[in-house]
């Protein structure tokens, strides 16, 4: 494992993440323009989707593919349930539901970093892992919304919500005693139908699925034509994107007021639990090292894109300064630096 870890720390893309962290920490004026960052995130989704589709197109739907995807879906249901059970005793139920959704879903960037890491070490995972990535994104969101609805019912309808249903909110938060003080319940939560629409028509989601299909459909000729784009410049653009992620994490860490020791512990412990579950199920199912390790990475990762985007409207009572910050500022770097090499080492030890 030691060698692997050192290996990850000489990967230029990962190193640029640290450059971003440091540059952000000294409060430099460095800024990746938002349109470029958005382009890079779409590019990464397109590239991994396409490559996954190509791999799938070559192998077809194998037995291993079915097993990986099945375990993935099981994990996507088990992890948020487990997370909620742990959290509900210690924190507000709405926060608990949102955090459970965060860890039940997955992080595409962590998935990409994991794929890079494993491929560089000769344990390339199968293309169907990309299908697992797609399918593991949404179940946790729906489960969390149901949990929040249940919590809302238990709390009865508060007077505040009633008032808010009648008028649009005031220009600034009612209390003048600082940001964190009041956490007013905003406009009423979205309908279930709207939530499902948001979750399933999310742009990032659809680009990933679309690229998967295009990759599978366009065969070796298409693959060769796209290779310089989806393979050649991939590491470089990933490095650029991780530079931005580093800047973002540095900024987020500065504002991490609402995350205490318990939640930091959860943000590190939950990934380890998730990865362990994945490693156990995957070993029983006889997965290869690469598939096993990447499934553990998926299980361990927390979503800081789709989930916060939807949950913000679906569970407005929960604080983004908790679930978003935990996933982005604690779990993401943890997985990148320690998690990925660790899960790989464990997979090697188990089935290597």
């Amino acid at each position, binding site marked *: 494992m030691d060698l692997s870890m050192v290996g990850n720390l000489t990967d230029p893309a990962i190193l640029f993440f640290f450059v971003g962290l440091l540059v952000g920490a000294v409060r430099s004026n460095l800024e990746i323009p938002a349109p470029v960052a958005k382009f890079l995130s779409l590019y990464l989704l397109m590239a991994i989707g396409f490559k996954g589709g190509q791999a799938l197109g070559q192998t077809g739907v194998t037995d291993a593919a079915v097993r990986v995807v099945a375990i993935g879906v099981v994990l996507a249901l088990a992890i948020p349930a487990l997370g909620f059970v742990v959290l509900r005793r210690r924190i507000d139920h709405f926060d608990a539901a949102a955090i459970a959704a965060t860890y039940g879903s997955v992080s595409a960037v962590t998935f990409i970093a994991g794929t890079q890491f494993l491929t560089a070490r000769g344990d390339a995972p199968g293309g169907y892992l990309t299908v697992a990535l797609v399918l593991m994104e949404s179940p946790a969101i729906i489960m969390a919304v149901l949990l929040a609805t249940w919590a809302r019912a238990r709390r009865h309808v508060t007077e505040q919500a009633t008032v808010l249903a009648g008028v649009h909110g005031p220009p600034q938060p009612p209390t003048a005693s600082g940001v964190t003080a009041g956490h007013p319940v905003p*406009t009423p939560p979205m309908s279930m139908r709207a939530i499902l629409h948001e979750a399933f028509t999310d742009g990032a989601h659809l680009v990933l699925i679309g690229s998967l299909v295009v990759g599978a459909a366009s065969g070796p000729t298409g693959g060769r034509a796209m290779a310089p784009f989806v393979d050649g410049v991939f590491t470089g653009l990933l490095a650029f994107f991780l530079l931005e992620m580093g800047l973002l994490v540095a900024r987020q860490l500065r504002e991490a007021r609402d995350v205490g020791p318990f939640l930091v512990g959860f943000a590190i412990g939950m990934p380890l639990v998730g990865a362990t579950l994945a490693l156990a199920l995957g070993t029983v199912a006889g997965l290869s090292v690469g598939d096993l390790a990447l499934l553990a990475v998926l299980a361990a990762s927390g979503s800081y894109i789709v989930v916060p985007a939807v949950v913000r409207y679906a569970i407005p009572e929960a604080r983004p300064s908790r679930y978003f910050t935990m996933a982005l500022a604690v779990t993401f770097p943890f997985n990148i630096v320690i998690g990925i090499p660790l899960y790989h080492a464990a997979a090697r030890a188990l089935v290597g």
Partner: protein
Amino acid sequence: MQHVKRLDLVVGSRVATRFLEALDTLGLPHRTVIPGVHGYGQHGPRGSDPFATFDNTYLLVAVPPDRVDEVVAALQPLLQEVGGMCLVSDARWV
């Protein structure tokens, strides 16, 4: 120079079309649109993730003063439902 009412709306980029369609329905198609706007309101931060999946759009609409109440009445339920800000002020049209 005639008097107009100026509406400054800041709404989620994804739902901006709904506001614009409401204005179209009122026969008020003229508008200015600034994309890629960040913000912080009752629904927390918007636009500051590198994915910009959920940023805001700024809409500036100048309308004849006698139509402003109608416009506000049409937009209020939308603001209620999907959040956003709407400021109304006075200006003169050159």
